[in-house]
């Protein structure tokens, strides 16, 4: 099993190394290498999943590790930690990754840096797989950084575009902010537990080695890392810009896998979250889900809409982790990975088409802009169908995977709220449900604007055509994976995942915190959960349908005039359209603040530390005679200051050498008297 996992993990790395070095010279620029590697990994991961399914054991776990750093006192081992969670997510990652690889063959065709693109994809797959398989937080952190750099490289793939370069930089730095928290969290863990190994931490927390406020702090700080990676409020700003990257990248990294790493981390560390920590998690997630959704409504860039929807969906998952709907959250992670990847690839194929037709017609414009589209239904059937399926899944319509996971989450939040005495916690389900309506609304707004109605730009429309098989097949595969029964086998009830293999294999780990005394523990009684689930399902279905209905009213039947409506709610519209001015805010405060601060320090360094300017300037003005040696360079140098002081001193001292012999003798006489006085006293 370990061997298998190692192969899955290392094959992409090998592909990366070869590709980055000699990819250019290989036939087909070595894309087959990367695709082949990830393909094999995909198959192997299926085998692994198969074994797990055969075992059908919720507590399945394989571990193996080797020493990496050994300082006597401090020992760090590196190893793999394969439980059901890991296996399932590995499978999901390799699946999506494989499909995206295949898709890219078509999408990236003819790109000058074709080979490098695949190399990067392989590197990413390697680091992502490592991230989900490693058995210690330190290793996870390393991979965490690596996926970060991969996303940096891939977002900035079209590096000649300044916007792309900026987006990449922004993504990495914003993530670093999160990682800062992550790092501190790690340090708390290591300094108390003395190890990064997950199982060790679990025991330690159970024994109360790490407890109380520090534990909460550790939880929240580690969560900060997740906030960065999973683009939660307030660190979400990088994800929309990340859409500058090629669409397959957006699909793989910024929808399906990397951004879900935060959720994965929260799932892994669920056992050490105290109640307070969980509340923080839940509220951040909940707020984000609504917040992002409201922005998504007004965006016109097709990919940005999807980006914000991703953020909001991630918000769901995070919230789920916070309210103890562990299974639901993780479930949503997997299903979302499938249909959101699909959505991106779909949009990719639309953009692809737009792009080509723009090249043909020579019309310049943004291929991502919905306002240029419309009526593509007939031209790109496969894309259209799959796209609709994905959207339904996302909106949470029964018979699609999204429905199962999403309403599980909503039920979870509801249950949580009901189980708590404090009514304020009803906020969480409210966030969830409102977000649900909006989600359905903007998804169908997107679909209608893109595929229905009459084409807004005829000349472009003429040259629109379906993408090649190599791109559409992955779409279909993903569409298939977005159907509900995949996850409910052996049961086939569309009502919920209960009784399915997924819910059987994944169960919420016993909170290590719970075993400690004096910690408020989250407990949700069975009946509450059931009741909540039923209500949740009903409400969410109704809400989803309402959302879709609204979308149709606005954009299809045009019963409500969009323009007028927006006019009426102009301020709100503006707010949403401009993403609540978050970027501008950060730009104004953090970025320019930092730059200003740097300038100040630099000035300080040049002028204050490095020589008290006025002092040396003054001295040099008066005593600069050392022909152009020191005095040329007034503006720095404590050294210069001292130097010039000394020179000045020397100059004045040498005044006594008047050349007058009698003064000399006088000086000597005075000196003698001075000496006498000196020692008389």
């Amino acid at each position, binding site marked *: 099993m370990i061997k298998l996992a190692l192969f899955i993990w290392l094959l992409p790395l090998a592909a990366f190394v070869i590709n980055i070095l000699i990819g250019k010279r290989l036939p087909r620029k070595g894309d087959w290498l990367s695709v082949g590697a990830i393909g094999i990994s995909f198959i192997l991961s299926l085998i692994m999943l198969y074994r797990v399914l055969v075992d059908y054991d919720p507590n399945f776990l394989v571990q193996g590790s080797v020493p990496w750093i050994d300082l006597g006192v401090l020992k760090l081992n590196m190893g793999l930690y394969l439980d059901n969670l890991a296996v399932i997510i590995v499978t999901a990652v390799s699946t999506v990754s494989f499909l995206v690889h295949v898709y890219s063959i078509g999408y990236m065709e003819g790109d000058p840096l074709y080979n490098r693109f695949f190399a990067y994809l392989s590197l990413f797959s390697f680091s992502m797989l490592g991230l989900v398989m490693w058995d210690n937080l330190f290793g996870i952190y390393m991979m965490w950084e690596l996926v970060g750099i991969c996303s940096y490289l891939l977002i900035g793939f079209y590096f*000649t575009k300044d916007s792309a370069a900026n987006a990449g930089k922004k993504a990495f730095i914003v993530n670093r902010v999160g990682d*800062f928290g992550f*790092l501190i969290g790690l*340090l708390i863990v290591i300094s108390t537990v003395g190890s990064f190994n997950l199982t060790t931490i679990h025991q330690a927390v159970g024994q109360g080695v790490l407890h109380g406020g520090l534990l909460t702090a550790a939880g929240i700080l580690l969560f900060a890392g997740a906030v960065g990676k999973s683009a939660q409020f307030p660190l979400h700003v990088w994800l929309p810009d990340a859409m500058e990257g090629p669409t397959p990248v957006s699909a793989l990294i910024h929808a399906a896998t990397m951004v879900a790493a935060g959720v994965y981390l929260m799932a892994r560390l669920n056992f050490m979250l105290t109640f307070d920590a969980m509340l923080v998690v839940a509220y951040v997630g909940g707020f984000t889900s609504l917040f992002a959704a409201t922005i998504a409504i007004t965006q016109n860039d097709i990919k940005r809409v999807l980006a914000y929807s991703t953020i909001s969906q991630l918000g769901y998952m995070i919230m789920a982790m916070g309210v103890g709907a562990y299974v639901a959250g993780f479930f949503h992670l997997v299903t979302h990975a499938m249909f959101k990847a699909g959505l991106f690839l779909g949009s990719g194929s639309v953009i692809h088409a737009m792009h080509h037709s723009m090249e043909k017609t020579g019309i310049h414009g943004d291929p991502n802009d919905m306002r240029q589209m419309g009526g593509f239904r007939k031209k790109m059937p496969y894309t259209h169908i799959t796209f609709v399926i994905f959207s339904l899944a996302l909106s949470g319509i029964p018979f699609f995977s999204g429905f199962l996971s999403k309403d599980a989450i909503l039920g979870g939040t509801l249950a949580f709220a009901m189980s708590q005495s404090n009514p304020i916690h009803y906020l969480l389900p409210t966030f969830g449900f409102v977000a649900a309506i909006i989600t359905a609304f903007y998804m169908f707004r997107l679909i209608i604007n893109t595929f229905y109605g009459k084409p807004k730009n005829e000349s472009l429309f003429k040259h629109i055509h379906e993408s090649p098989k190599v791109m559409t097949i992955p779409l279909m595969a993903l569409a298939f994976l977005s159907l509900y029964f995949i996850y409910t086998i052996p049961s086939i009830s569309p009502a919920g995942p209960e009784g399915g293999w997924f819910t059987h294999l994944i169960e919420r780990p016993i909170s290590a915190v719970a075993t400690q005394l004096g910690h408020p523990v989250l407990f949700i009684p069975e009946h509450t959960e059931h009741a909540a689930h039923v209500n949740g399902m009903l409400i969410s279905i109704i809400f989803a349908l309402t959302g879709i209905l609204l979308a149709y009213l606005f954009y299809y039947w045009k019963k409500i005039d969009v323009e007028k409506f927006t006019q009426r709610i102009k301020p709100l519209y503006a707010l949403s359209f401009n993403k609540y001015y978050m970027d501008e805010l950060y730009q104004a405060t953090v970025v320019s603040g930092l*730059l200003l601060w740097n300038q100040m320090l*630099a000035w300080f360094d040049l002028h204050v*530390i*490095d020589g008290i300017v006025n002092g040396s300037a003054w001295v040099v003005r008066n005593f600069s005679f050392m022909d152009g040696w020191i005095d040329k360079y007034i503006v720095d140098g404590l050294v210069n200051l001292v130097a010039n002081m000394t020179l000045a001193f020397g100059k004045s001292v040498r005044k006594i050498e008047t050349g007058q012999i009698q003064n000399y003798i006088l000086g000597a006489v005075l000196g003698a008297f001075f000496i006498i006085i000196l020692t008389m006293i």
Partner: protein
Amino acid sequence: MGLISLATFFPVLGALIILFIPKEKLSTIKIIALVFSLGSLVVTTFLWTQYQYGMIGINDESQFQFVEHLAWIPAFHIEYFVGVDGLSFPMVWLTSLLGFIAVVASWNIPKAQKGYFALFLLLDTAMIGVFVSLDFFLFYVFWEVMLLPMYFLIGIWGGPRREYAAIKFFLYTLLGSVLMLLVMLALYFNVQDPVTGGHTFNMLHMMQQSNHNSWLSRFDVRFWLYLALFIGFAIKVPIFPFHTWLPDAHVEAPTAISVILAGILLKMGTYGILRISYPIFPDIAKYTSYALAVLGVINILYGAFVAMAQSDLKKLVAYSSVSHMGFVLLGMSVFTSAGINGAVFQMFSHGIITAMLFLIVGVIYDRAHHREINGFGGLAVSMPVYAGVASLAFFAALGLPGMTGFIAEALVFIGAFSVYRVLTIIAAFGIIVTASYVLWTVQRVFLGKLNPKYESIGDINGRELFTLVPLGLLTIFFGIYPLPILNMIKVSLNYLITLIP
């Protein structure tokens, strides 16, 4: 003549030979320089294969390896006493490596090549000498001998403000070392040689507190001596208020010399503190550790912030060194195994990484003849290979996992956090700033629209690649598999921290 001495004096031998070659025979001179610097590298590498892990060193002569112990000036108790342990050997090897690489890097040095290579080889010897000598007097001699070639190398072959930078460097470091001289003499007279009962310059005797006489056991005395010694080393590191020589020296020096400056000379400061100050004055080291930690944090953040504000690529790299040396200081100041091992590992890793960075700056400077960061842009289009290597180096600098820098910094953080929580958290803030200035630089130089000026600029050539690739491989290799270094240093360092009360 043992192998250590061979490794030490092999380069200067080359220097002597070069002196007797007419300066017209350029290629011969270069070849000799190459051969002799390489020879030293070969010897040290061979020594590595002979190195016995698990021998402690620090303050016990029997625990040192490749020891040579001869009388030099018996009347003054000066000995020729050299040897290596886990603390010094990585530095020795690094020195010989960078020495060799620097020779290759300075292949096309414009003028007066004969003098250049002779001086350089002399410098090489002096640097190795500093790391191997265990007799304080010997140490001091090597330490000072280093200054002369450095002065000329910066002053003659440097940039426009070279004369100023050279003299500034010379004065700063001399000021530091004369204080060291006084401390050395004070120790000489107040430490008793347990064998002969006379005075001694032997560092290892000085480390035995029992050899200190009553005067030297007084707290205030120890404090002032420690302080004087510390200033001497702090100037080399350079620690915050004493760092102003560094930007000038680095910017004006020719590429190869910047590599040596940043790669080796900066390490000597911290090496000196670890090798001399700590074992001889453990109590004061403990007493002042918090101050040192604070200075370390200041270095980290201050260096990073100021680096971000620079518009000169080389200055930026120079300030990044200030920032990175801060990690060494922080790690040293906590006396935890992780911390101090991280610190020394950082010394090694930064030696490699900063060397790469300066070489990279040199490459672009040779082509564009300026270092204005904003004057470039989009170079990744015209020089893809160069861009690749450069980004590797820059990522290494921002502490990317899988490279040495990451492990070093992580260890430092781990070690420091358990002692100074708040300070460590403040220091950790540095990783954000570092990321910011590194990526910002990469973007301004390599990304974006290609600056039309550099459409026809040539990509990095074989020789330059030859200087960079080994270093790159090293960072990655030791980043993934740090044990060879860690196993070597940990034994000595874990023992060293036990000396601290």
